[in-house]
């Protein structure tokens, strides 16, 4: 790696940087002797002429501009180093010439050579000439170098000189006595190979000198000797940074450097694409087959269903168990399926035929969990009866581990370890090959589920009551690596899994019906996915498709989640519009609950934004804007009461909707056929949605079928409440208006405080308290304006019944009603008795 130094300019600039330690001074200004004196040895080693020859330059070179804010020298030297790393020596040399920077000063090059060639004395001298980090232990560095010297001497069997080195050079350095002892014991080695084996050293001809150089260079100031592969490590940091920020990172590929890496949220499985509902009771377990083509689900209904993922149809229903299914496991080659059940048995099934091959009945309590050995020839079942049993494929028990009541167990993919969690809040890890216990660890909380990562290094535990989080542990040490929180888990078994391409994610179910997903690398919560109702018991990720996972819940459903399909707009649902008049008979009335209160808190905001009339269909279309609060759960065909008129939404957007008005509606209500063109105030309306099932019933049932309109004949204050007197256009409705009864005015249910009737006239009064005045538009109307009126329907029904009994038809004609007939019969009977 020798780089020629061309000219004194570069030397001076390097010396400059060597002295300052930082590369702030980008000026390559040539300096005089004063500069050279600052570097020991350096000037002594300058080739040829003296610094005086630097004055042959006519003018100091202008400072070169920084590279987009980065120090030019740093960048250039790093690039030179990268070129050398990549093997482009010629290019590196040209770059050095052109940029007039060198990668390393000559001292450094010489030092490097000295080390690589084993010229230890020279190397030691040069080491002191280089700028060493202040906190570097010089003695340690010397020890290292001299150790190499010692080992090399032993290698060539020059024992006496080696001993000399040990005594005079290594010992005085006051390094650890153990090291000295071990080095001296190496002198007993018989041959060079033995030495190499004992010392774990690969000889002078091997990489040891390079390694020594790397170690030494770490202690030398970075600007003098750039850390090796600096560009590569910088880029590595950039990638790590981008990856850690990418929340939805779901690929195993290393990101390209050409663009900033960012995974789109839409590429992440966020929506339910299928719901499998065949189970008849809570579904407690779900697992994909290892080839990703099938899914097995186990339920409290005692059955296991194997599904085909092409069409999401069941392939097999496995019904032999007599207890709820607690756990399932596909064999590594997917040819068999193990099921564990509360009937204290585990069954082995053939997944092609759906038949039960073997039943393992050795357990005396619920079988809680099972796992396959990676070769598929043996498997372990665990139970709360304190035993874990290792079986072979013939259903014979090979080995039993006794002691812990096991909730869940796993076998690592490399077949090295068996890990289990028990009722006593402990984690037990066994060596699967020797079957000995490696360690057990107190967890401080109950863990209901354990999963292991594909690389067999990490285990994921679900912690329940009191702790309520997920923990990632290192399986070798049992130490916590990371926590993931957000789930709710108090009483029940909730399971987790690793997921995503390269297992970037950790997924868990929860008692609050959501599925939780976190980034494994940094614990960031990626998504909380609602959808299930009731506890989400188990989750599983498709091992071959990073965009699909499944969840099983108490609601008897298994949901398959994948990338969002094309968004289906609610507005696109088909519906036919029916004018009001045709809707009335026969159809179910849309009951809208009136309580004097409107859903909308701000009455000012609802105005008819436009009215259009079509002569051909004789239908008027009303558009209302600013209605976002009531459109949150709207669907086409829903009924909205507009000024007490039940109207059907024919179309809607986020905050406007349109309704159609038939001629009958226009006759009976106050809706104009068109908006007054010059009105400064918009025509405002009361709006209310239809009643839902869980509200308090504070008024009376109003259908939204307006009977007539009435005009305001008087308006006066009675303290702060305001009393309105209404006179209906059609006097017949007065029959149904009684004092202290209900009338719906513009859709608001109001109490009648006074009624006045007389020849051909009638009126009633209502009182609007402050609150009502704020909430409905009627309060703002003045004398002479009109309102929609609907009377209480019960009055009408009663009237009709009475008329039927009295024999008077609707038109007043006597028709021999029931009462009359009764009287007739009684009279006849009496008369006949008399005779």
């Amino acid at each position, binding site marked *: 790696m020798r780089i020629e130094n061309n000219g004194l300019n570069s030397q001076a600039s390097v010396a400059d940087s060597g002295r300052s330690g930082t590369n702030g001074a980008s000026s390559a200004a040539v300096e005089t002797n004063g500069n050279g004196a600052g570097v020991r040895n350096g000037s002594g080693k300058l080739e040829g002429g003296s610094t005086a020859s630097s004055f042959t330059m006519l003018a100091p070179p202008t400072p070169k501009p920084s590279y987009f804010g980065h120090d030019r020298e740093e960048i250039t030297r790093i690039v030179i180093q990268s070129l050398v790393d990549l093997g482009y020596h010629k290019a590196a040399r040209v770059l050095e010439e052109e940029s007039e920077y060198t990668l390393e000063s000559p001292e450094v090059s010489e030092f490097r050579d000295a080390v690589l060639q084993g010229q230890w004395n020279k190397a030691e001298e040069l080491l002191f000439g280089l700028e060493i980090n202040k906190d570097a232990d010089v003695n340690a560095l010397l020890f290292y170098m001299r150790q190499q010297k010692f080992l090399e001497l032993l290698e060539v069997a020059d024992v006496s000189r080696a001993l000399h080195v040990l005594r005079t050079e290594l010992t005085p350095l006051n390094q650890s006595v153990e090291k000295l002892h071990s080095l001296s014991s190496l002198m007993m080695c018989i041959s060079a190979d033995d030495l190499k084996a004992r010392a774990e050293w690969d000889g002078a001809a091997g990489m040891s000198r390079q390694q020594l150089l790397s170690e030494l260079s770490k202690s030398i100031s970075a600007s003098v000797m750039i850390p090796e592969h600096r560009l590569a490590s910088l880029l590595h940091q950039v990638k790590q940074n981008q990856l850690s920020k990418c929340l939805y990172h779901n690929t195993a590929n290393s990101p390209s450097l050409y663009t900033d890496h960012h995974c789109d949220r839409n590429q992440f499985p966020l929506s339910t694409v299928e719901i499998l509902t065949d189970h008849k009771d*809570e579904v*407690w377990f779900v697992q994909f087959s290892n080839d990703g083509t099938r899914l097995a689900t186990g339920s*409290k209904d005692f059955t296991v269903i194997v599904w085909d993922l092409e069409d999401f149809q069941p392939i097999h229903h496995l019904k032999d168990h007599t207890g*709820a299914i*607690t756990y399932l496991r596909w064999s590594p080659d997917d040819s068999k399926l193990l099921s564990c059940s509360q009937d204290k048995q585990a069954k082995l099934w053939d997944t092609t035929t759906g038949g039960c091959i073997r039943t393992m009945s050795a357990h005396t309590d*619920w079988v*809680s969990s099972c796992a396959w050995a990676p070769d598929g020839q043996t498997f372990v079942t665990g139970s*709360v009866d304190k035993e874990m049993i290792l079986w072979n494929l013939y259903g014979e028990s090979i080995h039993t581990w006794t002691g812990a*009541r096991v*909730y869940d167990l796993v076998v690592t993919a490399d077949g090295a370890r068996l890990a289990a969690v028990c*009722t*006593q809040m402990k984690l037990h890890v066994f060596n699967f090959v020797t079957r000995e216990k490696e360690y057990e660890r107190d967890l401080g909380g109950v863990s209901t589920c354990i999963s292991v990562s594909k690389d067999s290094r990490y285990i994921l535990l679900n912690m329940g009551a009191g702790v309520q989080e997920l923990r990632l542990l290192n399986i070798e040490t049992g130490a916590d690596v990371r926590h993931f929180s957000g789930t709710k888990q108090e*009483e*029940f*078994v*909730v399971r987790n899994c690793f997921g995503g391409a390269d297992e970037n994610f950790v997924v868990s179910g929860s*008692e609050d019906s959501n599925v939780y997903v976190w980034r494994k690398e940094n614990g960031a919560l990626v998504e909380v996915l609602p959808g299930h109702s*009731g*506890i989400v*018991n188990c989750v599983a990720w498709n091992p071959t498709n990073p965009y699909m996972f499944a969840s099983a819940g*108490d609601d008897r459903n298994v949901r398959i989640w994948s990338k969002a399909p094309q968004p289906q707009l609610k507005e696109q649902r088909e519906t036919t519009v029916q004018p009001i008049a045709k809707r009335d008979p026969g159809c179910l009335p849309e009951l809208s609950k009136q309580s004097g209160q409107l859903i909308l808190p701000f009455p000012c905001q609802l105005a008819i934004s436009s009215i259009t009339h079509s002569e051909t269909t004789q239908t008027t279309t009303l558009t209302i804007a600013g209605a976002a609060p009531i459109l949150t759960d709207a669907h086409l065909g829903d009924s909205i009461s507009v000024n007490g008129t039940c109207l059907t939404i024919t179309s809607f957007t986020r905050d406007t909707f349109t309704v159609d008005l038939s001629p009958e509606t226009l006759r009976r209500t106050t809706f104009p056929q068109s908006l007054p063109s010059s009105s400064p105030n918009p025509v405002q309306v009361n709006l209310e949605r239809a009643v839902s099932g869980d509200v308090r019933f504070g008024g009376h049932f109003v259908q939204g079928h307006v009977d007539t309109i009435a005009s305001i004949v008087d308006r006066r204050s009675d303290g702060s409440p305001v009393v309105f007197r209404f006179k209906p256009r059609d006097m017949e409705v007065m029959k149904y208006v009684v004092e202290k009864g209900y009338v719906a005015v513009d859709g608001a249910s109001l109490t009648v405080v006074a009624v006045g009737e007389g020849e051909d006239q009638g009126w009633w009064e209502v009182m609007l308290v402050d609150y009502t005045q704020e909430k409905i538009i009627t309060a703002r109307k003045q004398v002479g304006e009109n309102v929609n009126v609907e009377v209480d329907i019960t009055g009408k029904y009663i009237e009709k019944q009475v008329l039927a009994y009295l024999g008077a038809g609707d038109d007043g004609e006597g028709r021999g009603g029931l009462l009359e007939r009764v009287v007739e019969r009684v009279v006849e009977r009496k008369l006949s008795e008399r005779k």
Partner: protein
Amino acid sequence: MGLSYNVYLNSSRIYGCKNCKTHLSNYDDILSRNFRGQHGKAYLFNTVVNISEAEPVERNMTTGRHIVRDISCRQCNEIVGWKYDKAYEASEGYKEGKFILEAELLVNVR
């Protein structure tokens, strides 16, 4: 509601449900052996596990009026005894919040 496991007790003598062997209480939790239930001998326990409680009712016992609730094994739903909610006589107050398990309905499990 979800999968949940029974509680397992840790002692040398454990009483369990006669029907399904679910752990109910420890020998060490017995407060008194001097009780009689509908099936004969019964013991007063400090704590029991794996039970579900019924609604409280008022009952006249040999020792006076009490408010009790029947308790059954949560696994097999067989009644195993009752729990005292309230005792009207002051001298019986020590029973409040404690449980009676009938000896006839228990087995020793280990």
